[in-house]
C-alpha cells in the first residue's frame, strides 16, 4: 500500500521535473516545449555515419588511389572500385601514381563499422556524419564516386578535417594527461 502511494508520488514528482525539463529531444530538430526550433539534433564528434571519400584540396583530386585495401577489409563486401593512371602525376602535379577511376559503396549493405577508415593508408575515406539517406528505390543508396566525394567534402568542411597522418600527435601518457586525471578524480 505504502509503496504504491510512494510510486504515485514518484510519478507526480517526475511530472514536475518533466514540466521543467523534459528529456525528450525532438527529431530532426530539437524543438522544445514552446515549439521553438533550435539547431538540428547534434551528433558526437566521433559519430560514424556513412563512409565517404575525401578530396585533396592541395592537388585537386581525391585522396583515394583505389588500392583496394578497404575493399578487402570490409566485412560486408559492399564496395567496389576501379583504378586508373593518374594524369596529374604525369604532369608532375601529384605524387599519386594511380588514382581512383570509379568507386561505389552500397550503403544499404554497409554496417558502419569503420574498418575501411581504419585500414586505409591514404586518409582517403572517412566516416562522415551523414546518416539520413533513405530513398524509396532499392538501389537508391548505391553511391558512386562524385556522390561519395560530395558527402566527404561536406564532412571535411564541417569538421575542419585534417588528414589523420598529418595530425600532430598529442603525446600519450604525457604531462597533459597526467595532470588531468587526478584533478578530475577529485572534482566530483
Amino acid at each position, binding site marked *: 500500500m505504502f509503496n504504491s502511494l510512494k510510486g504515485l508520488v514518484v510519478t507526480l514528482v517526475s511530472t514536475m521535473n518533466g514540466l521543467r525539463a523534459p*528529456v525528450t529531444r525532438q527529431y530532426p530538430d530539437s524543438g522544445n516545449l514552446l515549439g521553438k526550433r533550435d539547431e538540428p539534433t547534434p551528433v*558526437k564528434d*566521433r559519430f560514424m555515419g556513412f563512409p565517404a571519400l575525401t578530396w585533396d584540396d592541395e592537388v585537386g583530386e581525391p585522396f583515394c588511389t583505389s588500392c583496394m585495401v578497404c575493399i578487402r577489409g570490409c566485412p560486408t563486401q559492399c564496395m567496389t572500385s576501379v583504378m586508373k593512371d593518374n594524369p596529374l602525376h604525369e604532369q608532375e602535379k601529384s605524387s599519386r601514381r594511380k588514382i581512383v577511376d570509379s568507386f561505389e559503396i552500397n550503403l544499404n549493405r554497409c554496417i558502419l*563499422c569503420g574498418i575501411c577508415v*581504419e585500414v586505409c593508408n591514404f586518409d582517403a575515406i572517412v566516416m562522415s556524419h551523414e546518416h539520413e539517406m533513405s530513398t524509396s528505390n532499392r538501389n537508391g543508396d548505391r553511391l558512386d564516386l562524385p556522390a561519395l566525394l560530395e558527402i566527404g567534402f561536406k564532412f571535411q568542411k564541417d569538421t575542419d578535417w585534417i588528414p589523420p597522418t598529418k595530425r600532430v600527435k598529442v603525446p600519450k601518457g604525457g604531462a597533459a594527461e597526467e595532470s588531468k586525471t587526478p584533478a*578530475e578524480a577529485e572534482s566530483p
Partner: protein
Amino acid sequence: MTQTSENIVPNAEPVEMLLNMGPQHPSTHGVFRMVLWVDGEKIVDVVPHIGYLHRGSEKLCEGEQYNQVITLFDRMDYIANFNNEHVYVRAVEKLMGMEVSERSEYIRVILCELNRIASHMLFIATMGLDAGAMTPSMFCFRGRERIQGLFESVSGARMMHNYFRIGGLKEDVPDDFVAQVREVLELVKKDTEESDKLLSFNEIFLARLKNIAVMSAEDAIDYGLTGPCLRASGVDYDVRKAAPYSVYDRFDFDVPIGLDGDCWDRYYLRVQEVYQSIRIVEQALDQLPDGEVTSSLGRRLLRPPAGEVYVRGENPRGEIGVYLNSDGSDKPYRIKVRPPSFCNLSALRQMLKDSWIADSVVILGALDIVLGEVDR
C-alpha cells in the same frame, strides 16, 4: 515441430487450447515464439520455437578475418555489445599469447560495466512493461540514453561499436572521458533509484512477480542457468569473481544473490547489479592508468597460431563462452559461442508449467533473453 501433441501432453483433454504466442507478440522480446497449451487461463505445457533470427553468425565468422569478426559479435547480443566484443578479443589474445596494455583493459572494463548497466536498465524497463507498468520504462530509457550517448562519443556508434581491437582498442577515449563518465554515473544512479522506488516494491508488482517460476538452486544448476537467473536461485557464481579475467580482480564489488529464485529475485538482483557495476566503474576510473591503447600490431593482418581456446566472461545475461579454433590462417577455422540467453531459455518449460498466461510474459521477461544471441 517434431513433437506431436500426444507426446508432449499425454493426457491432454479436449478443453485445452493451443495458443500461439509470437513471433509477432509484443512481449516475446523479439521474434521468440512459444506455443502454449492452455487450460482456461492456466498453462499446461509450452513448446518454444527459436530460429526466427538465425543469421548464421558462427558460420559467417569462418569467412571473416579476425578483426572483422568483432562486427559479428557486436550483433549477437545487441544489448550488450561491448561485453560480447570483450570476450571475443580476449579469446584471440589468449590464442596469440598477447599482452594488453593496462589502460586498454581498464577502459574495456569501464565500457563493459557501463554496458551492463545499460542492459539491465533495458531489462528493468521491459520488466515493467511486461507487468503492465509503462512509466519505469521511460525512466530507465532516460538513463540508458545517457550511457548510449557516452558510447557514441567514445566509439562513434550507439550500439554496434566495433571499438575493441585484438590487443587494444581502436583509439583512445576522448579527453573528457573520465569527467563524462562520472557525470553520467551520477545521473544514472539517480535514474535507477527513481525507477527502483517506483517499481520494485509496488504491491501489485510484487504480487505479480513474487513466488512466480521458482527455481531451486539444484534445478538452476541442472538447467545450466547462468548470470542473474542462477544467482537469483541463491548460487553465488559470477565469472568475474569465480575466474577473474581482465582486471576484475582489482575491484571491490559484491555479487548480489537472491534466495527464493523467483521472478522478483531475478528482477531485483539486476537492480542491485546496476549499483555494483556503478561501484566497479567508479573504482576503475580512480585507478585508470595512462598508456598506449592501440595495439602494436597496427593494421597488420592477424594470423594467430594454430590451436584452440575457450574463453568465458560474464555478460549481463550470464556466462558467455567463446570457443575458437584456428588453423593458422587469417580467418578462424571455427567459432562456437555459448550464449547465455540460449542456455537460460532451456529452463522456460519448467518455469512456465502450471503458471498463468499473464505470468508467461513476466517469466520470459525475467529470463531476459536477447533473440540475436539465442538464434545467433
